[in-house]
């Protein structure tokens, strides 16, 4: 089994599970399919030798964010009749809009396709290793890194403040 075949299978599985996120009726099934999509994307990162991002994607996305989504779903305790219904017209409109977006982007990137025909040889294949990325992150991108920690503190305080149960409920 060649590497190309593996990546084609991975890509089609990613698209299929991404479609199931949108198509499945129950939100918990959507969450599970999204976790599967993230795992496939991580596998593609490993295939592209971006090992650090593959691990971060698995831990942060498939681990932390998706568990957060699942917790919220369990907390809300939704039942079948609470699922808001969509009209047929909006689905048709959205599919036309999304399909047009897809076609426009594919057409716009046609020149890139001709440039990257066949197998892609990677000039420097250790660009995605932890050592290289760590050196880059803590030298050139040190200030954005520190600012992102402030962003996290703001998000944490904001989440606690927003989700705090208030004494009287506003109607």
């Amino acid at each position, binding site marked *: 089994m060649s590497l190309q075949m593996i990546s084609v299978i991975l890509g089609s599985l990613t698209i299929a599970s991404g479609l199931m996120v949108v198509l499945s009726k129950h939100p918990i099934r959507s969450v599970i399919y999204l976790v599967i999509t993230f795992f496939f994307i991580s596998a593609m990162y490993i295939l592209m030798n971006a090992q650090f991002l593959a691990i971060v994607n698995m831990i942060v996305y498939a681990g932390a964010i998706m568990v957060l989504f699942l917790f919220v779903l369990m907390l809300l305790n939704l039942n079948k009749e609470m699922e808001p219904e969509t009209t047929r017209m909006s689905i048709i409109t959205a599919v036309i809009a999304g399909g047009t977006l897809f076609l426009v982007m594919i057409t716009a990137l046609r020149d890139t396709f001709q440039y990257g025909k066949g197998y892609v040889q990677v000039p*420097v294949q250790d660009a995605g290793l932890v050592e290289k990325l760590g050196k880059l992150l803590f030298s050139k991108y040190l200030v954005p890194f520190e600012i992102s920690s402030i962003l996290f503190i703001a998000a944490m305080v904001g989440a606690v403040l927003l989700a705090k149960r208030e004494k009287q409920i506003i109607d």
Partner: protein
Amino acid sequence: MEQLNNIGASLDFYIFVSIALFSIGAIGVLTRKNMIVLLMCIELMLNAVNLLLVTFSTFFGNGEAQIFVFFIIVVAAAEATIGLSILIMAYRNSKSIDIEMFNKLNG
């Protein structure tokens, strides 16, 4: 060692996959009324962008794009937290997760 030197498929295939994922996410944002699924579709679109960035980073052998992917993951985590807490607050006030509920904010 010859096999390790390429990234599996050609560049156009990875671009195709990420554009397809982005369009699926966009269609999901436009069709679904459930707020949680909407947030998940936004995550899907962010991941499509990440995949494209990593593809080009590998193709050009430049690690800086992967730093940007790292920051996108950071911002996505913060965004998901805030979005979900807004959702919980909205659910407490109106007992519904329909996105149309936010029309009430319209004066």
